[in-house]
């Protein structure tokens, strides 16, 4: 089961959930994912080894995809 969340003022919001075997749920999640990217969000997949991967397409096999805002120099 994959989960797409957006970090926002509520802490985070779950935008979509999908199963790798269900094409419809993944397509809906991918559409939500695309909308958020178009709105300027960036997507990241945290991995078990303490790193994270930048993604520009919603990976079907990811457990968690986090949408975050851009960072900048202070």
């Amino acid at each position, binding site marked *: 089961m994959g989960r797409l*969340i957006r*970090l*926002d*003022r*509520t*802490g*985070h919001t779950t935008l979509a959930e999908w199963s790798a075997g269900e094409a419809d749920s993944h397509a809906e999640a991918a559409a939500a994912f695309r909308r958020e990217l178009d709105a300027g969000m*960036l997507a*990241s997949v*945290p991995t078990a080894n*303490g*790193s*994270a*991967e*930048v993604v520009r397409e919603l990976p079907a096999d990811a457990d968690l995809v*986090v949408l*975050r*805002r*851009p*960072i*900048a*120099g*202070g």
Partner: protein
Amino acid sequence: MAQARLKAPPRPAGTPRRPGLEEASALWWRGEVSGETLRRDGRRWTAWTVWLVVVFTAPGIGLLLLSPWTLPVALGCFAHAWIVPWLQARRGARSVVPLGSGRGRAGTPGAERVALGLLGDLVGHRERDLLRRTGLVVQRGRLGVWAVGERGALMVRPGGRRVDCWCVRVAETDGLPAADRVAHLLLALREDEVGFAMVANLGFSGAAWRVRRGLSEAARPALAEARAVARRGR
């Protein structure tokens, strides 16, 4: 107007797009950060500090050689030689805002709880405990060991003796809970450490003891832990 002034210049045709962190890719005019560029920047900071000390100390010594009656003025010179480098190190240390320090705007209690839960899931047990005590997340990287706050980050260079202070933040916080701001920086760092260092601005680089003095008592164990990890990784 301000936005127009801050708008990034367009990427020249043919400039290859940098993989990794999106924000770093937008800064196409900035050079890649590496261990060598960090050492060079560190040497510059050391030279600058030495220069400041010499510039303020030499006149004081000169005045004392001319006449012992100039002692008060000479002492003023010596004080400057001490205070200016101290202020620079303090400013660097204070560019890092630990979670829960009260120096950043917090979200609603409910949002902070949710955000803290996610942040806790992103880090290991040891880092979670350190986060609870210090407000900083320690993250090991290739360039060094990082301590990330809700704004800003420290990076202990390999060996644990030098610390770089980085100014970095979420571009538009817009009510984000403080723990989410830490999560933003942590995710970006994990995605692409070199890109993260390209986006962030180096505010200070110097000896760890100088940075430590500028940190709050609560945050110091995070620096100690980062230094210990950096020493072990040698």
